[in-house]
């Protein structure tokens, strides 16, 4: 593979200083994530996984070490340069969706493109296509409060894809959803991955992590496990399996 890895972490540390106390949130971490991978980052709270997510998401810079995103070293970039990398390379999906309540679903999806200089018509066309791809073509004109949790997360995933990023970075994407809806979202992420999209999911939920092809485990700021999953859980299949029961209940 000649293309650079989507993420290359080389001896990265992140140190927070509060007064006299130094907190090593990450301590000499190194790994790479190849294009097209589905990686879960796991660890209990305080393990440094949130810090790592902020770094991979180009929201923050490492204190030490090198961090390459899609081949670009972001360790010494300005905040505006980081913003540009985020816009082009990373699609965020959050636990609490982070939709703007006063924009329709399609406008929420199109919102990131307003910072690209693309014409309004083109942005809307692309957003509409992505909403259709996540199965929400009939909800394009709805506002977030009119949508269910699963629908909101689908809108958020469409938004994450709108700028055609190298990687979708999902922070506890099923954390605010019931099991079934969570599986639907995981199935959607898996199908995106099957089409070649790099997916990184940050979670503390072992079952969620089992849907990925690889699990990176963190504890106390260090990488303590790098496990390849030979047979990841197939969310779509598990949904089919429980469908009759669900339908009967409804």
């Amino acid at each position: 593979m000649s293309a650079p890895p989507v993420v290359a972490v080389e001896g990265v540390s992140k140190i927070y200083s509060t007064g006299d106390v130094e907190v090593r949130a990450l301590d000499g971490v190194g790994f790479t994530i190849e294009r097209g991978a589905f990686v879960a980052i796991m660890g209990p709270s305080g393990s440094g996984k949130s810090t790592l997510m902020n770094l991979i998401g180009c929201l923050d810079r490492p204190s030490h070490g090198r961090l390459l995103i899609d081949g670009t070293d972001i360790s010494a970039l300005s905040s505006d340069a980081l913003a540009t990398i985020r816009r082009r390379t990373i699609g965020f999906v959050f636990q609490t969706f982070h939709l703007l309540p006063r924009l329709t679903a399609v406008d929420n999806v199109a919102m990131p493109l307003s910072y690209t200089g693309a014409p309004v018509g083109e942005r809307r066309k692309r957003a509409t296509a992505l909403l259709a791809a996540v199965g929400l073509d009939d909800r394009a004109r709805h506002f977030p409060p009119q949508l269910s949790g699963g629908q909101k997360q689908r809108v958020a995933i469409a938004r994450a894809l709108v700028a055609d990023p190298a990687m979708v970075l999902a922070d506890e994407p099923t954390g605010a959803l019931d099991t079934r809806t969570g599986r639907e979202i995981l199935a959607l992420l898996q199908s995106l991955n099957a089409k070649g999209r790099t997916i990184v999911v940050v979670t503390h939920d072992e079952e969620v992590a089992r849907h990925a092809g690889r699990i990176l485990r963190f504890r106390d700021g260090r990488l303590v496990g790098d496990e390849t999953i030979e047979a990841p859980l197939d969310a779509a299949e598990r949904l089919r399996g429980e469908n009759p029961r669900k339908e009967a209940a409804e």
Partner: protein
Amino acid sequence: MSAIEAVRMALAALGANWLRSALTMLGMVIGVTAVIATFAIGVGAQVAIGKVIANLGSNVLMVWPGNANIGGTRGPSGASGRLSERDADALRRELDGALVVAPTVSGNVQAVNGNLNWQTRVNGVTNDLFIARDWEIADGRIFSEQEERRGGKVVILGETVADQLFGDTDPIGAVIRLQRVPFEVVGVMRPKGQTMFGQDQDDVMFVPLDAARLRLVGRFRSRPDQVDMITIKARSAEVLSQVEEEARSALDRRYPQAETGEAYNLRNMTQIVEAQTSAARTLSRLLGVVATIALVVGGIGIMNIMLVSVTERTREIGLRMAVGARRRDIRRQFLVEAVMLALLGGTIGIILGAAVSIVVASLTGWPLVIAPEVIAIAFGFSATIGVFFGWYPATKAARLDPIEALRYE
């Protein structure tokens, strides 16, 4: 993001909290209203003075008979009817600073030319009146010396009268009938337009003083040297008050007793108008202070509400940063909102200010002055206030840390 899109986005954000936005604009509205009204009143007064001076002539004093007071009953001004041409002669002799002293009489007549007729005002004057009132002949000539002395049957028409009686044809040399007496038209005055009270000053004609008294205005037949008014024009503004004083003492000497009320009225017209307009100028200055305070308070109000808005929308800011908005994109978003608040307030203020100006103009009879420059200045001012007071909140928003902002509850 295009400017139009940024504006539309800002308006949507303001509309989402429309009551709050409207209340925030109030300071701007009051401030800009006051600015527009200040200017309209200030300049209106200025223009009013200029117009009065242009109407009456500059450095002009006017004398007319006092009100009669017979057995305790006070008649209207001018009723004593005692001002005479001899008074004018005396003033002409005694006032060194006077350029001209012009006695006039006036009345209403029916003017007839062929089958056209027109009811109008006729003034019996000397050529001095044209000098006193800075009023020139547009066509034809003024009275000859002989016509003045003998009350020649010649008439000079105001523009309106000429139009009514002659239409497009040349009136010079034509003969019209005034009270059945034929008069030759020798001149037409330059048009003067309306007074500030909307009177048509060109709806008038002039004949020699004696022609009016003897042939046209009946009430002078018993007292042929009586006049209705004497207009005095001083040589310059510097000597005007001196001339006024001298005129008073000269007239006092001629009418020493006062048992029948005032013998005469003497007015420095410019002074009267200036006194009236100085009150307007004070009001205008007061409004200026109100405007300044209201604009500053309005600006601070905008800053306050923008700070609240930034805090409320911290998560939105975090999200926008996460999806790739640069700091300047965030700053622009909030700056445009602040400017839109200020501009909307300013626009309402301009409309209200124009309404106030119209009311003031109709109450005072001053000309309505709503200059486009002032509207442009008010608009520019509003935008500047929006930028000035919006800068800090917008910068605060732009400086937020995206990680903190995303986590903000």
